[in-house]
């Protein structure tokens, strides 16, 4: 009997925590679904009288082009990041050379720095390259600062491909590209999924680079537009809430569908705990 009661208590606690973590989503949803007439702060927790999509429509029309900007930035940046990470990880595990560990260490440090310490030179450089204020400027930025983490994830992933396999191919005279194409790349799919999800989520969610590199509202990604919306006194709070949900939706969908791979990226980001 005591065992059964402790199990019930255990599940109760787990469910209470779940409710706590989901509470913000509940508020986002019920607020977004209320008609403009019902959105009073005092009634924040009440269910909507019916399904009204006014807030979502208004938030979407305000964020629409910025969501497009986010996609235009995130897709090329993610693809290039994956390719670079895969090549670097391959070289650093299967073609190690004297000093490669030191270089890896120097790469990793780039993952932890506060980006504030590169922001002023970054802006000056992007201006000189005439990509400041453009989505390409952001793509370049995200690709470069993504190199450490993408390299790390691929390196840890490729460490599990038996080196004997690669060594045997080397003795058979296969070239570095041949080995990559025939042995390493075909085994890489899960690694690519982990890195792609990681980069997609991080770049989509980035705010610091977006707000410093793009000042023109028509170019800005969704995070910046949402922040501007939240800082404005003209936009109603229910529209802000609907906007927050819309801006979070792409990464939330990725998380729900491919959560397993998201967790793997997370663990890789924590080095080897």
């Amino acid at each position: 009997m005591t065992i059964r009661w402790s199990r019930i208590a255990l599940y109760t606690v787990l469910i209470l925590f779940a409710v706590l973590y989901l509470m913000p989503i509940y508020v986002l949803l019920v607020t977004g679904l209320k008609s403009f007439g019902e959105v009073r702060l005092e009634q924040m927790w009440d269910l909507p009288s019916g399904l009204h999509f006014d807030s979502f429509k208004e938030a979407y029309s305000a964020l629409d082009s910025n969501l497009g900007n986010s996609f235009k930035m995130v897709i090329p940046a993610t693809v290039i990041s994956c390719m670079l990470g895969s090549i670097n990880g391959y070289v650093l595990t299967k073609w190690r050379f004297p000093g490669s560990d030191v270089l890896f260490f120097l790469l990793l440090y780039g993952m932890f720095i506060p980006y504030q310490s590169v922001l002023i030179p970054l802006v000056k450089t992007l201006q000189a390259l005439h990509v400041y204020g453009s989505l390409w400027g952001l793509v370049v930025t995200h690709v470069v600062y993504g190199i450490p983490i993408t390299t790390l994830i691929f390196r840890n992933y490729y460490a599990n491909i038996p080196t004997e396999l690669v060594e045997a191919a080397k003795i058979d005279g296969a070239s570095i590209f041949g080995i990559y194409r025939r042995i390493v790349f075909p085994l890489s799919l899960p690694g690519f999924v982990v890195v792609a999800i990681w980069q997609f989520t991080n770049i989509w969610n980035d705010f610091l680079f977006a707000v410093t590199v793009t000042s023109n509202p028509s170019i800005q990604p969704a995070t910046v537009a949402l922040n501007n919306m939240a800082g404005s006194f003209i936009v109603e709070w229910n529209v802000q809430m609907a906007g927050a949900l819309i801006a979070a939706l792409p990464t939330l969908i990725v998380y729900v569908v491919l959560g397993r791979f998201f967790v793997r990226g997370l663990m890789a980001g924590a080095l080897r705990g």
Partner: protein
Amino acid sequence: MGIGTSGRRLVRRATSEQAAAVALIIPSLVAVGVFVYGFIGWSALVSVSEWDTLRPDYTYVGLDNFRDLFRNFRFQIDIRNTVVFTVLFVAACLGLGFVLASLLDRHIVGEGIFRSIYLFPMAVSFIVTGVVWRWLLAPRAGVNILPEKVGLGALDYGWYTDPTVTYVHADSRLGEALHAAGLGFLADPNYGIPLAMISVVIAATWQMSGFVMVMYLAGLRAIPEELREAARMDGASEFRIVRHISLPLLRPVTLSAIIILGHQSLKIFDLVMSMSRRGPGFATDVPALFMFETSFQGNHFSHGAAISIVMLVAVSALVIPYLFWSLRREARL
């Protein structure tokens, strides 16, 4: 003879392949070399310059900007806020993460669902988190009016709008004790806790605690069940098992979590920006926000760069030893 030539050819081939390998990662190394190390050097140069307007001016002024900074009233508050935020945020995430992991490590039906729910906030941006929690912790809404739903009175916490700083008053008994111990300077608002910061901690913990849970869960799973089983056989209580077996074995996980959360909290920006900005009397101001406003809104680039260098030094002091430690550990495995 024949073997010798083909052997040499093999060696030559291998060297050229090795050269190709190096060539493949050179673009990445150059990019990181310039964008990370080059730019840090450049920022350092700006931080000791006179560049205080839109026009670059690299006249050397030594450490003047840093001296200004540490005397600056706002920066002193920022340091206090960062320390308070870091300590509370890391402690809350570790505590909550460990509790959740321990609860989930008991053969739970639907473990995957619970785990996904606790972890999903990690997938959304700090901006989204900030917008949502700004309304959840608004003084006349959200959490404050929740008790009304069950017939109780509303709360009147100010949350992030509360300007109160809790500190030891010099004329209190504790203040006098500190004074007697030669620590009288601690009885000062600069060593207090800005209550508004707690709201930011709550939002940040909601977002990041799931990450710590995942790390601890992986750590707990790596502890052989027999170890705990044996202790149980010997009559050890669950508490003693956690205290003397799980926690010591989880120490590397705890360390990793502290470093990762700690370095994030030292550079926190987005969440504060979308939730409370500076807050009342700079109660939720942080160095990253000060840096951003100084550089890109005030054009005081040399001072902005100085703030960023201080942030870099703080983060590096935390991260570099950790990087050494984890790469060494990896090499030993």
